[in-house]
């Protein structure tokens, strides 16, 4: 059996904020071309983990490797092949979509930047919005604009932190179709966090559930459904798994301790 190359390897990652442990000895890896759903309740440590992966939060200990290289010592090289998208951060309001993408194309040292911007706009069917300022775009269009930014450097690893939070179901549906299409075409590796379990069921090959900064369950969406809901499900039901795991954890805490 051929072993896949991990594009992202996180080993024993620890991040504390004062007395609060946000990420507690977390280890996981994402293979090339794999989409990993990274789930957990609010405050579980997902965004902190992603911020550590981006280098905007400094880890306390542990190791982060991307493409086999240590992030801390090869940051510039590695981040050129990574991109990131979160609904929390919107591209600068006063610039047009084209201007924003052109700026980011240069940040990522994309060759033929102007052509690449037009190509991405075309791929995302946003050419007609090229000259629109971000502030004039609808929420759904802004999400697509963020996604266009995330694709500008043809990333090998894409970190999506609730990219479609607060979007209506139609926008989410279109967004998911787009992500699936591009992931398939580019064989992109994706780490995807969301509170919308349907999104994860649609895109994720594997899922990691975290709570209190620790992994509490992992597997394919269907495996997890069968394992955690204790029945031979035909379809994944991550929503029920999420509720079950969160409530089970709460009961365990109330009974005096955490089980991992």
């Amino acid at each position, binding site marked *: 059996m051929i072993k896949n190359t991990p594009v992202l390897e996180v080993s024993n990652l620890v991040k504390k904020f004062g007395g609060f442990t946000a990420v507690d000895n977390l280890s996981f890896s994402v293979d090339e071309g794999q989409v990993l759903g990274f789930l957990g309740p609010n405050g579980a440590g997902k965004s902190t983990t992603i911020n550590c992966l981006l280098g*905007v939060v400094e880890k306390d200990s542990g190791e982060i490797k991307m493409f086999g290289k240590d992030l801390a010592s090869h940051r510039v090289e590695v981040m050129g092949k990574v*991109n*990131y998208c979160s609904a*929390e*951060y919107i591209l*600068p309001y006063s610039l047009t979509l084209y201007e924003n993408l052109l700026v980011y*194309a*240069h*940040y990522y040292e994309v060759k033929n930047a102007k052509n690449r911007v037009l190509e991405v706009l075309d791929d995302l069917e946003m050419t007609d919005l090229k000259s629109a300022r971000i502030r004039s775009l609808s929420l759904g269009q802004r999400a697509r604009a963020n996604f266009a930014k995330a694709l500008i450097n043809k990333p090998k690893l894409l970190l999506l932190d609730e990219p479609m939070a607060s979007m209506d179901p139609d926008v989410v549906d279109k967004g998911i179709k787009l992500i699936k299409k591009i992931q398939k075409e580019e064989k992109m590796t994706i780490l995807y966090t969301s509170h919308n379990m349907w999104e994860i069921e649609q895109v994720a090959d594997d899922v990691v559930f975290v709570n209190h900064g620790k992994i509490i369950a992992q597997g394919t969406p269907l495996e997890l459904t069968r394992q955690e809901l204790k029945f031979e499900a035909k379809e994944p039901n991550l929503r029920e798994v999420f509720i079950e795991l969160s409530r089970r954890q709460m009961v365990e805490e109330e009974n005096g301790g955490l089980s991992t």
Partner: protein
Amino acid sequence: MRLDLSVTRIYALGLRHYFLTFRHLERFADLFIFPIVGLLLWGFLANYVQVQSQTLASFFLGGMILWIIFERVGTSVGIDFMYELWDRNLVNVLATPLTTIEFIGGLVLVSIVKVFVSLFAMVVIALFYYHFSIFSLGVSLVLFWINLVIFAVTLGTFSIGVISRWGHSVGPLTWVLPFAIQPFAAVFYPVSILPSFFQKIVWFLPLAHVFEGMRYTISTKMFSFDHFFAALGLNIIYFALSISFFTFMFKRSKKSGTLAKL
């Protein structure tokens, strides 16, 4: 340790601020309107006093032009950083391969380019309307300029360090700080005018040496190397302290998670 520097990434930062300047009226005003209004104000005053003394008028105009160089660079570095915060864009930028040195260096370069644009407009107005040429200061102008820019960058870097640690609430520091220093910088009057207590302290400000040096050059047509080297020496110390402070604060901000929330 390897130093990663990319002209393309610094250009990206410049491009972002180029677009921003033409999209925000206040950025455009910063570039042309405020410096020109300042020059007009002090130019009229210079016209009024030149009846008494041509030299005094030159002090005012020279002081104003050099002050604007300092103030524009000093505030621009911090304000351009603040734009990334106001736009909720800092994490997006820091998630690119852009290094911290490129980020700060880029902001400094952007502010220097902007000051040249402002300076051009001011020099033209001063020359044709007030018949004052800042170039009459000769080579010494370049030497004053070097000290002003170093101190402005020092102040800008300090402001960014404070903002990256404590966020938006301390943002106004970036435009308050240069003005808080102005009364003690002896821009429009000699240090000897200040109360004796302040006279001892202000010599620790590179700006006081620059403006005293400027007045010396206008009056005597000679260059004061004493003031130049005093300003340069202080600048080297303050610049080193400011970079260390910024590095420490930026690291702390990453450690505490504040940076990701700015």
